[in-house]
């Protein structure tokens, strides 16, 4: 460990530890994963906090996200400008929220944003159709998809305005005992 230059300053590591659910070792491991995605782009010295973004195509080629039908939405939700290109902060944030120690409310908040495809702070019928299509790889007929969306709105929409707000969504999540274990990416 002698001559190897430090990736982060001491203060940076402390800040990351305090603001995410990871330990020092896990943060370093995540950094090296991030660096592996684009070795030419990402410098090995982050003490000066360079402004580096890894493009979405490389992020979505990660084995943890490669086969996830929602990988585009995940990258969009956690990226700086909503375009899927992620800085190291976004990367750490994403895996911190998807780790097993994140509380239910935090996960529910981000899950809501992921399933809100048109970013209008409500999950409307169109958002639901997109979700169901992605979940079933397009193998349900259009009629079945719209039936499912109708049933979901019937069940979850408490104030009958035709779409789900964050409160409605959190109410659904409370009733699902295994949400914490399914909304979890292991890295």
């Amino acid at each position, binding site marked *: 460990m002698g001559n190897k230059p430090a990736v982060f300053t001491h203060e940076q590591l402390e800040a990351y530890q305090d*603001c995410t659910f990871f330990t020092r070792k896990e943060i370093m491991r995540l950094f090296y994963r991030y660096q592996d995605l684009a070795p030419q782009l990402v410098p090995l010295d982050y003490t000066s906090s360079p402004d580096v973004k890894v493009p979405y195509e490389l992020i979505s080629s990660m084995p943890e996200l490669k086969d996830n039908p929602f990988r585009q939405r995940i990258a969009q939700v956690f990226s700086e400008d909503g375009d899927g290109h992620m800085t190291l902060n976004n990367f750490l944030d994403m895996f911190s929220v998807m780790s097993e120690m994140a509380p239910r409310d935090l996960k529910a908040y981000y899950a809501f944003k992921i399933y809100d495809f048109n970013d209008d702070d409500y999950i409307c019928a169109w958002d639901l159709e997109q979700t169901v299509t992605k979940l079933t790889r397009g193998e349900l007929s259009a009629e079945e998809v719209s039936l499912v969306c109708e049933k979901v709105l019937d069940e979850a929409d408490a104030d009958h305005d035709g*779409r789900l707000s964050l409160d409605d969504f959190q109410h659904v999540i409370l009733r699902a005992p295994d949400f914490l274990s399914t909304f979890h990416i292991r890295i």
Partner: protein
Amino acid sequence: MAQPPAFVFNILETPEDQGQDPSPYDESEVHDSFHQLIQEQSQRAAEEGLELRVLPQREPGPETLGASGSGHQALLGPEGVPDYSTATLRILASMPSRTIGRSRGAILSQYYNRTVRLRRRGSRPPLGGVGRSARPSLRLYDLELDPTAFQEEEKRTLLVKELQGLTVAQRDHMLRGMPLSLAEKRSLREESWTQSGKQRGPQGRRGLLPCCSRLRYACGLALHSLGLALLSALQALTPWRYALKQIGGQFGSSVLSYFLFLKTLLAFNALLLLPLLAFIVGVQAAFPPAPADSVPTFTGLELLTGGGRFSHSVMYYGYYSNTTLNQLCGPPLDGSQCTPEAGGLPYNMPLAYLFTMGMSFFITCITLVYSMSRSFGESYRVGSTSGVHAITVFCSWDYKVTQKWPSRLQQDNIRTQLKELLAEWQLQQGPRSVWGRLRQVAILGFVWLLCLGTTLGCTLAVYAFSELMIKNPVSAEREWELLALPLVVCLLNLGAPYLYRGLAALERHDSPILEVYVAICRNLILKMVILGILCYHWLGRRVGALKGQCWENFVGQELYRLMVMDFVFTLLDTLFGELVWRFISEKQRKKRGKPEFDIARNVLELIYGQTLTWLGVLFSPLLPAMQIVKLLVLFYVKKMSLMANCRAPRRPWLASHMSTVFVSLLCFPSFLGAAIFLCYAIWQVRPSSICGPFRTLDTMYEAGKVWVRHLEKAGPRVSWLPWIHRYLVENTFPIYLVSALLLAVIYLNIQVVKGQRKVICLLKEQISNEGEDKIFLINKLHSVYEGKERSRVGRAQEAEMPPTLPADERDAR
């Protein structure tokens, strides 16, 4: 994240507004007109095809509305954009419910509230409790004052100030849970650190108070990691994870529930076997009794009949000694007690046998009841009878799946699950006439009569055959004749369900779940009645018939034979039944194709096998080991046959409550019956006098009584144990008291649940009413602004009118 827009909220009051509509102060008028107004508004909305979808605003200016509106129209869908005025839209965009996700300011104020509450209470708020108040209160959006006072920077400084008042651990906890980006969290943290006046160097933060809280948090984190590591290790130990996933993806959750139930039974048997191995079998194997006179040689028939060589092994009750083991006595002086020599640990075998049997049954009972109540609690929640579609759509995708093939399996799984849900819902739609219903009931009654008649016939056949076996005892050379009774029982158990399935084709049930439950019920009645007759045959008739011989060994061997025959018949049925069916259907090229996996019959077979194990464990302590081997082989055979010969259920149905039903069936008829059999055998039946650990006693329970009397003589130090025995176990009053208390607790719980359900209904109604109010107010607001707009346009037109008066002069030219 986008920059939050600056919201300007002006209510312009013009004199034309007053007096047109009933004001909220005229309460009596308002009550009547509300309903009317709501109806009018909803009618108008329906006519114009209005849905409450407002364009998301990126900037408040009216000139950019058109651009953003057209930009988002493609995303929103084919419905027409509601024609709200820009002022209405501005107000809607600043609604508290709308600003949660978008505005950082809203999040900051929300967490400001939380930290204030935290500081006042001085302890960590429960996360679940605070989550309910996610919407910032209207107080923060002061409608009368200038809203620029509560700009984002103000909220931020307020939050930073509050964060400084917390301890380090609480601050970290709060920061981690905030739904802000990491960069913002870091800057918040830095600001709260620098302004707090503490030293920023590493020495300052190693002060006493932060050190302790940091240590405490580190301990908590370490324990948490340890628990997680243990859990993941346990998960790695559970076998067949991929096989189960494969089965679930290809055949649906209903077929998967059978295999999960098999896994549960494996766990129960392992739990039962461990104390038996440790306290009975192991000890007796270490201290074998004096060998019997003539031990027969091993022939292959023992594997089927369980007799012969196996009779003189740890496998059966008769092998166990009735003395205290490892007690090396000197010759007794004057008939006094035997004193153990140094180094020996005396082990009272009869007592150990009795207590271990009782303890393992007790542990099994507790585990069964616990798992039944837990699966019941997971499948039924108060007030949420619906919600399964929403949960399937939002919570069922497992983000841990990282490879292509498992991911596709999961998508297939979810697709099948959604199809099952839709199928169940559609089946509830069709109405029926009275005549059709009567006919249905008549057919149902007739089929039930036939099935019960079949059951009675089978029972009589078993009884007659068992009496025949008593009348013609089997000699030692023709041991294979002992297999006759198990053979008859297995044949009846095999044939009758096919008959029931044929009869069930006559009736037509609405839901496939009901069909399965009815089939399970009929098969269960058959099996339990046959087992009941056999129990009477053993404890009632065989004990008398086998006087002078070791009847417990005989009963143990009978149960062994039953288990082996059951296993053989299951294998034959699986291999031939499904295989032959597949060949037949392939040859005939029928539309029906491969056979379906009959879940009811297979589950009943598992429960039957487990009942046999529980019945026989008193007389043959190694029976659970046999059952474990049998279940392992059965898993692979069934899986192989399923993949090769069967297809997914024709009418997909939901299996969410099946595991609860299976465990309940395991508990109530199966375990309860075995426990009753055990209690009767221990308390009422006289053990045989030539073999086993209770050979000199009147009942098996007397071993315990003997020990208690021994304790009474031992001295005053252990007098509490005989006291407990005399006043709590042998006296009946405590039992009545405990039962009455239990009944009272159950009744109270039922009332509490009823009350909770009522409260949930009321709250749901309230939310729905609030939603209607909201729609009404928005439409009212829109009409107010529209009216103003129209009047403004009207006034502008009036102002233009005089210049057009001389137009007729122009026309005249």
